[in-house]
């Protein structure tokens, strides 16, 4: 129990002194997770929306599969990415293993199904509402997807934030493909795992609180930004 207080103290100290290492790994955490989020959104938002508006033969199966992929175990994703990027793997020549890029790739794989599933769910309702109008106006698929994403952006926000949360808190995959190399691929979560292994629970918790604070910050920032703009519309 004392450790929890010690952890808070450690977090406080780290933040107040602007510990150089902390700043570095925090920025790397943000960089990796936000990059992964942007890439995953670019893929998942249109994909999820497309699934919501399109009727095809294996639609239900596809959706069930997508939902199941939300449970992709990060360690397995990490392993597969590791095997693909390793020197003896097919993409070994790119030399991406143990770089932030590799970490981003792994996280994109992990969060894309999550965001796509949630997008599909959110867009289904909106599509039911817009269906007749958009069909009647003879829109192309692309226009339908764009309209739904734009008008449903509030609902999509939660999905994106869920993806961000999963990415920023994830450790299994990025440990394998990033390697937790000091000053190269160490991020907050891998640092926490390291301190835990060392038995320095206070520092681990301290880093954890920093991470939670970071997540809170990002969420409040996004909520504040989206609020000003919401007023006008929905």
């Amino acid at each position: 129990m004392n450790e929890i207080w010690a952890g808070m103290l450690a977090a406080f100290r780290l933040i107040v002194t602007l510990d150089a290492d902390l700043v570095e790994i925090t920025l790397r955490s943000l960089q990796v997770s936000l990059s992964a989020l942007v890439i995953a959104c670019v893929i998942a938002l249109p994909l999820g929306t497309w699934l919501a508006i399109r009727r095809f033969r294996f639609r239900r199966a596809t959706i069930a599969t997508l939902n199941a992929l939300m449970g992709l175990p990060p360690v397995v994703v990490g392993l597969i990415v590791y095997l693909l990027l390793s020197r003896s793997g097919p993409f070994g020549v790119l030399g991406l293993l143990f770089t932030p890029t590799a970490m981003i790739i792994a996280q994109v794989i992990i969060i894309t199904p999550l965001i796509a599933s949630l997008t599909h769910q959110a867009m289904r309702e909106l599509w039911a509402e817009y269906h007749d109008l958009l069909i009647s106006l003879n829109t192309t698929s692309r226009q339908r997807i764009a309209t739904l994403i734009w008008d449903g952006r509030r609902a999509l926000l939660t999905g994106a934030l869920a993806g961000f949360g999963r990415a920023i808190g994830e450790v299994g995959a990025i440990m394998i493909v990033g390697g937790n190399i000091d000053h190269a691929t160490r991020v907050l979560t891998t640092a926490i795992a390291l301190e835990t292994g060392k038995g320095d629970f206070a520092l681990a918790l301290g880093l954890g609180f920093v991470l939670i604070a970071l997540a809170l910050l990002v969420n409040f920032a996004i909520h504040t930004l989206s609020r000003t703009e919401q007023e006008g519309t929905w």
Partner: protein
Amino acid sequence: MVDASILVALRDTCVKRRGKTILGPVNLDLLDDGFTIVLGPNGAGKTTLLKVLHGVERVSSGTVKWSVPDAVARQTQAYVFQRPVMLRRSVRQNLAYPLKLVGASASDIDNGVTFWAAQIGLTEMLDRPATRLSGGEKQKLALGRALIRTPRVLFLDEPCANLDGRSTREIEGVLQRANAAGTRIIMTTHNLGQARRLASDIVFLLNGRLHEQGRATDVLRAPQTPEAKAFFQGDIVE
């Protein structure tokens, strides 16, 4: 099969949902011009018929044949739904949306929006969120949005149900002018007075079947079937 003056032909068209036939089989030809009013009691299948013609409702059997290829037909049609669908945007953006879709220039869009907002009397509400409009205002907006691309064929599903007397007459004027300018209109209403004022021809539906069809003056003055007669007198129709 489809001759020159026929706009669209339904042949044995059926719509089944959950094992129940909700429309048809219907055989119906609509001519190239005119103002068709579709009449019938609640649940007769009027909405379903309009949606089938427009192609937003799937047909279970039979055919719908337009005189032009389907793709062309679809591009030049517009529809005002019974329960108007409002995009979650401002009134202005709702009006502009159909023009944006076809890539109209910004100035064309501006002009179109200004003109039609005035026509439907929503000029002062252009920057309100459309979802917050009153019932009648929503209907007017849906109407303006349908007319803004000057469609060749316009479907209207009880467009004046929530409108006050003055708005109804104004909208009727707008529709008659559009019709005179070449827009084919197919519309449902429960307002028999409105049917009398607007219709060039009448389609009367009952229990999903086409019961009577003909020139408005004929059908309204001297309906052939007892059911239609009863309906026009506001009587019980079984």
